[in-house]
């Protein structure tokens, strides 16, 4: 058996699931962004967030800019290339007309994104017309076919890397749904055929082509004219996988964000519904905290990575040793020893399966029944035929009856009871908001739950409760402070944004890193609206009364002070001081006196005694 002692001994800190998301070479991705730069991309516009008209070209470019930033942060192993077609200038290894591969000179054509590339791309629109130029590359009498050339260049770029270990994708941005529409019919047929063949060749090599169409405000992008064949969709799929892309910039960004992340299965899970019915599910980690990444230590003079070596030293003999295989737990005057194998065996109480135990109404799932981010479950018939059907049936019943499933999941350390909550699909104009499936929520065990409420109860003494008037004021307050269109993912993490702004600034030697906007701060303007201020004032007055500044203590604090004094009073400090027996007390006991008399608590025991003596002698 392969045993990683670190893993065995590690105190459940690391969920093996999370390791799945650490980028591995094996799961890297090669992406070519292929952007139509024809004059039509510049002349067509869409309304943006603030109702300004933005050109299609701008939309495509800003989507990609955002996507590049997320590549560099989250998936720095991915290799990307940016390629325009329908350009005046040409720049590509094949010397094809109308295709321009945009790059930072220090990079290979397809390479990991760099800070420089991102920075240059951010300002590409300023110089695009001048340096690269827009020019329709499909001209009927010249037999030029820029789309064909673009696919060729993209395919050539994606030749790098084995398709065994990498996903290869082309994202094609265009607003021309019928690229050969203006051609004579024979030429059109010919061009269509060769272009489709080119696309098919690419697909046969394991490259997938994804289309991000941009629609004209008055004319929907008609995918059936040409592109459905190019990306290989047929009848049903056409409606299924080509959700009408909205016309707004935000929708587009959303679309791209969703598609750029390759769908990764965190885990295959066998779900045992009852004896004889086990179905196959895929678990996806759709929510995981993003972190600034691990620290790499560098040599401060050369800035080169340094080697960190860990050595184990025997405290008794000073001998360097191998990583010890035994661990000890002090227990009743002895050290009980465990080997790595024993501990790993101990933790293995079950197979990694998900075992259905039964169902409960949703009201049984309390707000505090939560340990860590949930895992999303979606069925697959890949290995077990019939899985999807059984899953959908349960899913519908659970939604219909307002129930969740309780199951035991052996795939985490430690294994946990989980709640499976069915989630119906939610869609908006911009596409899917919540995918249909079940969310697996990890439940705490009894000893994980703390009874804080009890700690704050005063037996027999009724806790103060709000009066009807106060409730009414609270209700008014809540109405005034209603967040419009709140959605859980609307805030960027300000600390993370700041961190990356800082890295980018240092990487590019920028002096000023600018201000990062903290979206998580309360909306000052909104809070200062007179109606809001009034509602808050009224609520405040109903609670605190007129004398609003300082809340009067309800006496408990005094009580606690008294209690401390009483504790200290367990000893007659004056007597002890006289007889010189203060030193017989423990530090803790000495501190009760100091606390009761509001004296500093720091210092060694002698200092404490001296402080008490000084105080007594006053």
């Amino acid at each position, binding site marked *: 058996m392969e045993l990683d002692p670190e893993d065995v001994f590690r105190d459940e800190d690391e969920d093996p699931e999370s390791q799945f998301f650490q980028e591995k070479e094996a799961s890297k991705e090669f992406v070519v962004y292929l952007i139509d730069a024809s004059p039509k991309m510049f002349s067509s516009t869409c309304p943006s967030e603030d109702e300004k008209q933005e050109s299609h070209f701008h939309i495509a470019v800003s989507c990609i800019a955002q996507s590049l930033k997320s590549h560099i942060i989250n998936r720095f192993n991915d290799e990307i290339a940016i390629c325009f077609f329908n350009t005046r200038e040409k720049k590509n290894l094949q010397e094809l007309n109308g295709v321009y591969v945009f790059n930072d000179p220090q990079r290979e054509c397809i390479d990991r994104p760099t800070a420089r590339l991102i920075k240059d791309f951010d300002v590409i629109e300023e110089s695009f017309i001048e340096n690269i130029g827009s020019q329709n590359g499909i001209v009927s009498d010249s037999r030029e076919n820029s789309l064909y050339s673009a696919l060729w260049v993209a395919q050539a770029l994606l030749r790098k890397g084995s398709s065994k270990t990498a996903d290869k994708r082309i994202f094609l941005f265009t607003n021309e749904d019928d690229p050969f529409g203006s051609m004579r019919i024979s030429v059109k047929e010919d061009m269509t055929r060769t272009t489709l063949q080119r696309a098919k060749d690419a697909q046969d090599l394991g490259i997938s082509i994804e289309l991000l169409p941009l629609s004209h405000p008055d004319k929907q992008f008609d995918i059936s004219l040409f592109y459905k064949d190019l990306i290989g969709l047929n009848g049903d799929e056409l409606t299924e996988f080509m959700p009408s892309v909205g016309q707004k910039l935000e929708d587009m960004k959303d679309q791209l964000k969703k598609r750029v992340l390759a769908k990764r299965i965190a885990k295959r899970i066998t779900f045992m519904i009852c004896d004889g019915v086990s179905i196959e599910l895929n678990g996806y980690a759709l929510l995981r905290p*993003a972190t600034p990444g691990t620290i790499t230590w560098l040599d401060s003079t*050369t800035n080169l990575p340094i080697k960190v070596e860990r050595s184990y030293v025997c405290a008794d003999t000073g001998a360097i040793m191998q990583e010890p295989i035994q661990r000890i737990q002090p227990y009743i005057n002895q050290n009980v020893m465990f080997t790595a194998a024993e501990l790993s065996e101990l933790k293995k109480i079950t197979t990694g399966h998900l075992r259905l135990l039964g169902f409960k109404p949703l009201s049984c799932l309390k707000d505090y029944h939560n*340990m860590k981010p949930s895992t999303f479950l979606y069925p697959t018939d890949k290995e077990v035929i019939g899985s999807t059907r059984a899953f959908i049936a349960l899913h519908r019943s659970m939604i219909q009856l307002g129930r969740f499933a309780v199951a035991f999941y052996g795939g985490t350390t430690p294994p946990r009871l989980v709640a499976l909550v069915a989630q119906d699909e939610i869609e908006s104009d911009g596409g899917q908001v919540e995918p249909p*499936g079940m969310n697996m929520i990890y439940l705490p065990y009894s000893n994980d739950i703390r009874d804080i409420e009890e700690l704050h109860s005063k037996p027999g003494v009724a806790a103060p409760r709000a009066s009807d008037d106060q409730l009414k004021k609270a209700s008014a307050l809540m109405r005034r402070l209603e967040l419009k269109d709140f959605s859980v993912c609307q805030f960027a993490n300000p600390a993370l944004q700041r961190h990356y702004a800082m890295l980018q600034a240092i990487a590019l030697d920028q002096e000023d890193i600018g201000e990062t906007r903290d979206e998580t701060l309360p909306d000052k303007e909104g809070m200062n609206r007179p109606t809001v201020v009034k509602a808050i004032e009224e609520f405040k007055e109903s609670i605190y009364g007129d004398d609003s500044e300082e809340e009067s203590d309800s006496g408990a604090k005094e009580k606690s002070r008294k209690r401390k004094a009483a504790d200290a009073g367990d000893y007659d400090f004056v007597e002890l001081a006289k007889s010189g027996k203060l030193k017989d007390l423990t530090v803790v006991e000495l501190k009760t006196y100091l606390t009761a008399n509001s004296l500093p608590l720091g210092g060694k025991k002698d200092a404490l005694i001296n402080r008490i003596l000084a105080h007594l002698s006053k």
Partner: protein
Amino acid sequence: MARNREGLVLLVDVGPAMHSVLPDVEKTCSLLMQKKLIYNKFDEVGIIVFGTQETENELARDIGGYDNIWVLRNIKVVDELVIDRVKQLPRGTVAGDFLDALIVGMDMLIKTYGAGQRGKKRLCLITNAASPTKDPFEGTKDEQVSTIAAKMAAEGIKMESIVMKADPSVDVDEKIIEENDHLLSLLSNNAIAKTVYVESPLSLLGALKTRRVAPVTLFRGDLEINPSMKIKVWVYKKVAEERLPSLKMYSDKAPPSDKFAKHEVKIDYDYKVNEETSEALAPEERIKGFRYGPHVIPISPDEMETLKFKTEKGMKLLGFTDASNILRHYYMKDVNIVVPDPSKEKSVIAVSAIAREMKQSNKVAIVRCVWRNGQGNVVVGVLTPNVSERDDTPDSFYFNVLPFAEDIREFPFPSFSRLPASWKPDEQQQAVADNLVKMLDLAPSPKEEVLKPELTPNPVLQRFYEYLELKSRSTDAALPPMDEAFKRIMEQDPELSSNTKSIMDTFRGSFEVKENPKLRKASKRMLRDKPSGSDDEDNRMITYNANENNVDTVGDANPVQDFEAMISRRDGNDWVNKAISEMKKRVVKLVEDSSTTDKALECLLALRKACVLEQEPKQFNEFLNHLHELCQERKLSHFLEHFTSKKITLIPKSEAADSDVVDEKAGDFTVKEEPNLES
């Protein structure tokens, strides 16, 4: 008794009706003691059993009465003996009176600790509360219980009662149970006491909080509605994972004669420029770097300090929103609880007003929190109301962390409605599923909910402590098997499943599942990003009729099918290589027999296709070269002639990246003499 120590008296009913559950009581009590020995070594414990023939307690001696109550152990610091004690509780012979026992326990606590140590004195009663209590000398039982409760509250004694629900099959007096329940609820309402009813050994193991953790606030400060309206609150962890103790590494290097050896292991970290050098870099010679794209960006501590995101401690309200806006699965972490500062009555009222109104109107609050000054990040979370059912407990909020935009990975999934009809349940199947969801019920009524998280113990920890105890007695003790009681969380309740057997059978009958007999590794990979719908249809196309996929040779009759079945086997790593080499042998045989040219070509094409899919171009190219030579040697060039018409070429780079053959050369192969492709 100093701060953060606890004095506990266990009151265990060992009367005849309790005998069946006593082994589990012993288990849970010994777990409690073990954890005290490890985490709270200075805690003190007394043990009282009642329902015994024997009577041995101070009150009986001093004032008489209080029969059948036996003090097994006076209150003293936990030691190894206490484990033995609770592991071998005596079996009593008479029905015990829990109220009497309670008084004996209270008396012991008060005599030992006096009136101080509020909240550090704890009574734990384990009983089935099915035996009658004696009438007091004066007044009613209610009055007596109220007096006890008042005394406990005054003395600051906490109490928890764990009541085994009576087995309905055994003859019990409903009236007595009702009365006892009433008395226990009186206690709960008037003292710091709670009563937990348990039905199974599993929940008995979970009912007793075996790990005592002193609650610590992680924040004390203002919940700010706006800069002028603030509520004083304290924040605690409501849920935190109880982990295995962190075991220390052990060094066996010290000589056995060294009596004072500590056997400790220190871990040293050395930072070196490269592996060869033995010179370690001093702390000031190294600098932290963070990955940014292909580069690692060095950041000095000074830069970090001046540039990093700065925060100010506080909780700020952002606003309210409908509870339905915050889906349950967005909760990111373990849960906190926000309670009003107990000394601020107005804050208690303010929290109460907001919490109750939130509950009433189904709203939640969104807050931005920084728990400590200088904390490097902020959290945005949701406050949900925790309106108290007990009069003496203030209302509070639960706090759950919500994800930031960066934390979400949105993948689109196909809508169920758009999946092919054959994948969706029909009406009859849906009805069967509805029935299962209804009938496999773990909460027939709110009171009888089973597998509550609050009452479910952690099986791994349970097992660890059991093992620890065994090992402490004998070093080579074997790992104990999983406790029977835990079957209830790892498998369906046999009673429930037998009651729902017919439903399960119907479910099994209606939802037939079967293993997908053949699955090509390669096609799986190629189709990974496609929707599962299209995926499997493709898979089915390459499914052949071999009943079981245990093909391990490429036979004479259906070589192509054998080969495809073999290469798609997934029960081992080298089926691909085995299949390819089998196929090569078959091709050579077929070529040598001139009557089977067509078959040979067919096989060769299949091999080529598979080598492209499996990205094994070298294997094919080498073989094709070999075959070419072979044919020329043996004058079998009629076979080679077919290559052009059948488009058999070497596998070029454009088809498989690992290939050494450039695209232009792939076709050349058949016409020209072979240059130097074989390496």
